[in-house]
C-alpha cells in the first residue's frame, strides 16, 4: 500500500525530514510519497505528517496564515501519526509559555524555548531513548526542553529534563533526528506497530 507523508514546509529543515521519511519507509518496505505542505488543503490527504525544526515564531505564524494549523489538529485527532522536532515540538505543545508562538495543543506538555541556551551552547550527545536499542546520536540546536508532562509519556531525558515524548499518535523531540542518517526515530514515529492505527484508543 502506498502512503502519503506530508512535511510542513513553510520554513525549516524540510528536505532533511523528507529524506529521513523516505529512508525509514524503505527500511519498512513501505512505498512512501512525500509532499511539501506550504498551504492548506494538502494535510487531509496525508497519512503521516512531520513538523520540522526551524524557528517556532515563523512556523507558527505561517501555518495559521496558510490554514494549515487546524488541519494538523484534525490529523492528530483522527489518530494519524505526527513527528514534531525542536521548533515543531514547541508549536505542537499545549503551552510554549511565550505569546509569540500560537500553539496547536496536540501534545500535552509545556515547553521552555531555548532551554539549553544560545547557539554557542548547542550540543550533540548520545541519548538513551525508550523503544530504541543503543544510544541515539541526538543533535540539540538552541533546543527547547519539556517542563511539565501531562498525559504524554517520556521517551528520553537529558540532564534530568524530558527531551522526547509520545502522546497518542504524536512523537516529539527537542533534538533533530532528521540531521543524521540514523532514521530510528522516524521509524518509531511512523512505522512501528504501536504508532499505527487509532493510537488514541491505546
Amino acid at each position, binding site marked *: 500500500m502506498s502512503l502519503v507523508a506530508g512535511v510542513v*514546509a513553510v*520554513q*525549516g*529543515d524540510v528536505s532533511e525530514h523528507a529524506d529521513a521519511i523516505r529512508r525509514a519507509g524503505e527500511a519498512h518496505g513501505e512505498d512512501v510519497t512525500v509532499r511539501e505542505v506550504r498551504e492548506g488543503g494538502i494535510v487531509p490527504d496525508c497519512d503521516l505528517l512531520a513538523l520540522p525544526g*526551524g524557528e517556532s*515564531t*515563523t512556523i507558527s505564524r505561517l501555518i495559521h496564515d496558510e490554514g494549515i494549523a487546524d488541519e494538523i489538529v484534525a490529523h492528530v485527532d483522527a489518530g494519524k501519526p505526527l513527528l514534531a522536532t525542536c521548533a515543531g515540538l514547541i508549536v505542537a505543545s499545549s503551552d510554549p509559555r511565550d505569546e509569540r508562538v500560537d500553539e496547536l495543543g496536540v501534545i500535552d506538555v509545556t515547553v521552555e524555548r531555548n532551554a539549553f541556551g544560545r547557539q554557542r551552547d548547542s550540543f550533540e*550527545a548520545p*541519548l538513551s531513548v525508550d523503544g530504541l536499542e543503543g544510544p541515539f546520536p541526538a543533535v540539540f540546536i538552541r533546543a527547547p526542553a519539556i517542563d511539565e508532562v501531562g498525559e504524554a509519556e517520556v521517551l528520553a531525558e537529558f540532564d534530568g529534563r524530558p527531551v522526547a515524548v509520545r502522546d497518542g499518535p504524536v512523537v516529539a523531540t527537542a533534538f533533530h533526528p532528521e540531521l543524521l542518517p540514523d532514521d530510528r526515530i522516524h521509524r518509531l514515529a511512523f512505522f512501528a506497530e504501536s504508532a499505527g492505527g487509532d493510537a488514541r484508543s491505546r
Partner: protein
Amino acid sequence: MAESTDLEELRRGTDLIKRGFARMQKGGVIMDVVDPEQARIAEDAGAVAVMALEAVPADIRKRGGVARMADPADVEEIIEEVSIPVMGKARIGHTKEAQILEAVGVDMIDESEVLTPADDAYHIDKRDFTAPFVCGARNLGEALRRIGEGAAMIRTKGEAGTGDVNQAVHHQRTIKGEIRKLEGMTHEEREAYAREIEAPAELVHETAEMGRLPVVNFAAGGIATPADAALMMHHECDGIFVGSGIFGAEDPVAMGEAIVNATNNWDDPEALAEISKNVGKGMKGDANVDLPEEEKLQGRGV
C-alpha cells in the same frame, strides 16, 4: 522511563551543529536591524533571525568611511529583545571582532564585505570558533574556499545596499551553472577544475556528488521586494537575507511580512500577486549599471 545521558559525552561547536543551525534557517528571511525596536518589528513580521549592525548597507554606502563591527552593547540589547537568533557582522579577516561577537553571544557571524576588510589576503580561520559563520560568494571558487575555511552557510554577495537584485541573481546563476558543469566531469577533470577555481579538491568532489553546495545557500545583496525574494527562491536559494530593503521601505511592517509570505509562496504567482499588493514603496536604491566600479562592495574578499 528512559535513562539519563552522561553530561561528559556532549560535544559543542562541531561542523554538524554549525551546519545544522544554518539548516534550521532554511525557507526563512533574515533581516538587518540597527536597534531593538527594529528587531522586534522583524520578529513580529516572521523573520527567522535578525542581523544586528550599526547601519544598514545603504546608509554605509552613503556615509562612506570605515565600516566596522557594531558596538557590542547595542548587539546585546538586540539579543535581549528577541527570542529568534541574532547574527552580527565582522570585517573580513578581523578575528578579534568575530571573537568579540562570539563572546557577546551572537548565534552566527557574518564575515561580510559590507564592512571594510581588515585583511587584504586572508579570511578568518572559522574552524577555531564555536559560533557558525556565513560568508558571501560570487562564484563556486569563492564559496568553496569559504567553506574550506569553516563557513557553515554561504550567501550570494549581490551588491549590498543598492536595492537592485541584479547581482544576487548573477552570483546565484554563476554558482549553479558551475555546479552543473562539475556534475558532467570525470574525477580527473574535477581535480583540474579545483585547481583552476582555487578551491579545495575534496569540496569540489563533494559538491559534484551532491549537485549543490555542501552547506545552506542563501540569497543576499539587493533584495528589496516580495517578488525579489520569490525570484531568489526560484533560483534555488535556501532562504533570504534582506538588508536595507525592510527598514529602507516606506512601510517596514508591511514590507517585512510580505517578504516572509513571498518566500513561502515563491512558486504560487496568484498568492504572490496578493502578497505584493499595497506594501508601500520599496527602497529607492541605485541601479547596479549606474554604480562606478570602485563603489562596488562585491570585489572585497575573494
